């Protein structure tokens, strides 16, 4: 059950950006799609969202092919690198957007908005203008907005990479907690293996449009599929390091749901 990509290929202009990808994400699972920039991982995510047309293969949810389902009926939440909050609406207006689209009544909207703002650590922010928020706060609101309508699948496109380092660490930790607490099924696209290891149940390594290895963070770290993967992960053997934070991440943090370097 959940998401299944079978033999998915996507052309981006003339180039084959995604080439014959097979991938599954189970219910409640967080999968990180990890790879260098330009490897096709964002295109893959956009194809899942329905924003990019696949040239062959299929995207299926619960074994139902999504080919004929437009973006707005897929019920997948999406968080961009830089939030993309609606600047003409306040924080509550942003979070409630998806609920409004589904025709939820005002009270239900308000309740859900409060609940989510609480969840992302911004209680009482509802009436703030989005332009008054810091980058980290904007990403939290974006996450709340995506989660509010209870999406079947949460798509996270480099959600932390626009933030500065300190924020990134903090938010990575929070995000890990959040995703668990919300019980979300998620596809996280990132080029930062620290982030991937911190957040994901499973990691799919992508290179030049292809998935070269999938496995738990532990498996990937222990047994990189080939030298290139090892080189990309930037380490040999045991000492996993987080290039973004520059400090080694203990196994427990990588494997566990509860990142401990944080608040």
């Amino acid at each position: 059950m959940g998401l299944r990509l079978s033999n998915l290929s996507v052309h981006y202009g003339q180039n084959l950006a995604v080439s014959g990808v097979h991938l599954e994400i189970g219910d409640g699972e967080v999968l990180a799609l990890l790879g260098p920039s330009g490897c096709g991982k964002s295109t893959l995510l956009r194809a899942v969202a329905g924003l990019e047309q696949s040239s062959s293969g299929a995207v299926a949810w619960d074994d139902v092919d999504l080919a004929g389902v437009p973006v707005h009926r897929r019920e997948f939440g999406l968080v961009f690198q830089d939030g993309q909050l609606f600047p003409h609406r306040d924080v509550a207006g942003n979070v409630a957007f998806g609920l409004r689209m589904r025709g939820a009544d005002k009270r239900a909207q308000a309740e859900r908005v409060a609940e989510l703002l609480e969840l992302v650590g911004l209680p009482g922010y509802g009436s703030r203008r989005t332009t008054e928020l810091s980058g980290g706060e904007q990403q939290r609101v974006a996450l709340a907005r995506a989660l509010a309508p209870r999406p079947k699948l949460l798509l996270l496109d480099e959600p932390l990479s626009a933030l500065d380092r300190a924020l990134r660490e903090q938010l990575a930790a929070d995000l890990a907690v959040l995703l668990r607490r919300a019980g979300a099924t998620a596809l996280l696209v990132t080029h930062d293996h620290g982030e991937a290891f911190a957040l994901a149940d499973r990691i799919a390594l992508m290179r030049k449009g292809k998935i070269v290895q999938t496995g738990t963070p532990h498996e990937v770290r222990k047994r990189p599929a080939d030298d290139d993967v090892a080189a990309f992960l930037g380490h040999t053997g045991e000492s996993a390091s987080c290039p973004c934070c520059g400090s080694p991440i203990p196994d427990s943090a990588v494997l566990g749901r509860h990142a401990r370097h944080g608040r």
Partner: protein
Amino acid sequence: MRGTKIALGVGAAVPLLFLAVFFAWPVAAIIGLGLGESGVGAVLADSQTWELVAFTLGQAAASTVVALLAGLPVAYLLARCAVRGRGFVRLIVTIPFVLPTLVVGMAFRSLLGDSGVIAIVLANAFFNVAVVARTVGGLWANLDLRAEDAARALGASRWRAFTSVTLPALAPAIGSALAVVFLFCATSFGVVLVLGGSEYRTLETEIYLRTVQLLDLPGAAALSLVQLVAVVGALLAGAIARRRRETALALRRSAETARRPEGAEWVVVGAALTVVVLLLLPVFSLIVQSLSTRDGWSLAGYTALAGDAAESTLGVSGLAAAVNSLRTAFDATLLAMFLGVLAAVVLSQLRRRRGRLAEAMDMALMLPLGVSAVTVGFGYLVTMDSLPGDLRSSPVLVPFAQALVVMPLIIRTVLPVLRAIDDRLRQAAATLGASPLRVWREVDLPFAGRSLLAAAGFGYVVALGEFGATSFLVRPDAPTLPVAVSRLISRPGELNVQMAYASCVLLMIVTVAAVALVERVRVGSEALGEF
């Protein structure tokens, strides 16, 4: 996604079909008639033709530069300055656009004497400052100030911040405005005729002469082709210059972006006010003329316009003519808004998928601004009888002909804003469950709403001032104000002249009132009429 493609296809087909039937076909037909006879080559080989081309493009380029220099401070004032009287200025700058070129030409003639080229350039610029102010101001008002502030914080002077941050962000709107103004100036007819005396001629006046007076269709066809090539060349140059400039920008509600000017910004405000005063000079001279007689001040022109004197000359009173103007312009604006907004939406969508196709379509929709009204008008004569109901003499053709001119303006006003909206914002809305139409309502409209209203107001003004097609096609017993002005001023006698000037003043009042009304409209919960 296939549904989107079909929708885009249909969306593109409607304005293009309109363009094909009411522009391409008539123009091709009349040029074809000319090419069928001999004499085309001779005109092309004539060195005078190329002098005409050089002068036409030269005066258009000069007028465009002047309009830009005068329009930018005004755009700044309208978009960025929280000062009193901003709304008034916004209304004032639209007035030139409705005034009949004959009368404005005469006003410039009396203000500047017969200074030839300079008068032509200034008068052309006078008509087009509003295009720059409105097109650029529309985007400027929504531009996020913080990028500029950031540049300032990094040590950039105000001027550096403007040239390195703001100006590039405004480039698409400036490019749009330049294209429109250039086309207007390149095909400017009345101004060149009145102020050029017998010395200065342009492609437009020469096409008029050959078509209308001499019925030299081969000569006119040759010149029309030259005009077409020149216009397409200019549009191509513009398109190349702005290629890839129209990018997503951080847009904000304009209420947040206007602030009180400080320091050197007052200089710009001063410049803007100077421009406004200069724009008002010819306007005032018209008002003065409407009130002065041989024997001193008098309201005779106005009272005559309201009563029997106007009825005997025009068949209707001045007020009835004003009502006719409002109604005709309403039709044209409605039609042009429908077509123009549709085209703008299609263009903004198409560009991401098929850039070149979008460019070609964009250019095609601009062409009516660059082709002689006479060519189109005579083209109608030889084609429109094939349509049901013989449209050649039908008043129905008036809004159609006007919409051709208004549509590109609407596209140019709305498109830069639509293109400046980050597409990911739309995608975010879509993933949250908004259908494409809902995305348009929730994302595009709040941003573009203001520019839509601006476009509607502007289109309305252009249609109010339109004279060429109207003078042929409007029912003789239902003249519009510009038609009334031309009829009155072509008669001897003081009272007729006064009534003509009084009609101009009435036209100004009607314009200001109409634009003020249009811009007060609220869309959704947002007051958008404040650009």
